């Protein structure tokens, strides 16, 4: 299937390997990602804290761009924060026609209009529900057998929109991980908050929360994530070295793609154990 692709700012910067691996993985799976032309920042956490209206306008601009492509394709978003902003704006615009009118007034001079018709989907939503599991299983040839993986979901892909998974007990990664031949660590920390941007401004928060999470990952050979913020925190505040990599990196490796093409040299955590595993 084909998708419109909204990478978001992080994927152009600190989460570059997430971007690389996403594109590589979808290529390998035979899906086509088309970047939303001229996409801009969704407002991240900042807009919401500074200006409520702007926090709708910024994502709305991108939705309008997507609509303008007239492809009818779903928008695939790998970054959970971007996903939530886009999705929430879409929801607000759908439910509040007055708001939609106001936003359109702001967008009009740029020859843009939004009607919130495109669907916004998280990378994990797409991977877990659009048939990727079977294709991964086919291509991975059990390459990850004997490997134990801790799926870490974070918050914003699960909540507040319970779109594709159980927000209390997420499981959508299980089938994907198993499709590689790996085992899934049975833990409760998959949906527990890592501290998100609070950890950026208050490192002690990140240290404690990430510590709590990774303490439970004892038996796992690696932790996989689907959010740049989570990835950053989990790599930055490790109580002891654990390989943390993005889900598409992990799936890509399982499919036999090269570590380099998946940006595996860019991870802050030491993911050599995973790489050597695939090499052998």
């Amino acid at each position, binding site marked *: 299937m084909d998708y419109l692709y909204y990478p978001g700012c992080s994927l152009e910067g600190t989460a570059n390997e997430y971007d690389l691996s996403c594109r590589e993985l979808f290529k390998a799976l035979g899906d086509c990602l088309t970047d939303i032309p001229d996409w801009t920042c969704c407002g991240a956490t900042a807009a919401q804290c500074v200006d409520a209206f702007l926090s709708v306008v910024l994502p709305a601009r991108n939705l309008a761009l997507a609509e303008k492509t007239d492809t009818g394709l779903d928008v695939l978003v790998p970054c959970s924060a971007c996903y939530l902003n886009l999705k929430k704006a879409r929801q607000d615009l759908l439910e509040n026609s007055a708001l939609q009118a106001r936003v359109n007034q702001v967008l009009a*001079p740029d020859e843009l209009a939004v009607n919130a018709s495109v669907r916004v989907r998280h990378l994990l939503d797409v991977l877990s529900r659009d048939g990727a599991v079977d294709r991964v299983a086919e291509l991975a040839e059990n390459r990850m057998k004997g490997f134990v993986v801790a799926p870490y979901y974070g918050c*914003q892909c699960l909540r507040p929109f319970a779109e594709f998974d159980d927000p209390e007990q997420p499981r959508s990664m299980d089938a994907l991980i198993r499709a590689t031949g790996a085992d899934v660590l049975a833990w409760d920390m998959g949906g527990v908050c890592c501290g998100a941007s609070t950890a950026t401004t208050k490192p002690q928060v990140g240290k404690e929360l990430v510590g709590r999470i990774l303490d439970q990952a004892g038996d796992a050979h690696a932790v996989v994530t689907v959010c740049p913020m989570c990835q950053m925190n989990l790599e930055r505040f490790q109580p002891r070295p654990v390989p943390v990599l993005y889900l598409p990196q992990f799936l890509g490796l399982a499919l036999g793609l090269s570590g380099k093409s998946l940006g595996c040299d860019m991870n802050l955590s030491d993911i050599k154990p995973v790489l050597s595993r695939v090499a052998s």
Partner: protein
Amino acid sequence: MHLTDIREKLAARPDLTRHLAQVKEQMATCIQCGTCSSSCPNAGFMDMTPRRMWRAVLTDRVDMVFSSQTFMLCASCYVCTLRCPRGLPLTDAMAELKQVAFALDLDRFRRSTRFYRAFMDNIRQYGRVRETEMMARYFLAVKDPRVPMSYTGMGIKLMAKHKLHPHFPTLGPGRLGPLFERATQQQEQ
């Protein structure tokens, strides 16, 4: 933080007083069950639990609300929103408190305020976030040498991984200045 400071500042800003009243109204059906607070991953770092803070909102204790860091520590994980038996938009309301706090420009939240300002300026200018420049602006804005120091280690790491690009590729027509302006105008109408 003195009660009078906040009261005075609020008195000068009827829009914010209204905003606060709206937040209070949104929270009116809170039954103080504490689900939010025992769910909150950051509750341990907060000087008062979310429940106590909401109670302060509902009993008009603005002094307590804004002398607390609680809402600033909200990481938007939405667990409380998910679980609140009254279906209250707790996470969104936290953000609204942040908005009020920023608009009041309270000293105690200077670091956060400056950070988010720097962020928004960055978007306004480039359309997308240029992380390196944004941080530099932020460090300048807080005017506190300890702040950049605390990020040095991380910066070096990121640099080593080629994740910080001092020269970000220029974006064509993506500048959002006019859009920001129009949004501001729209709100003022």
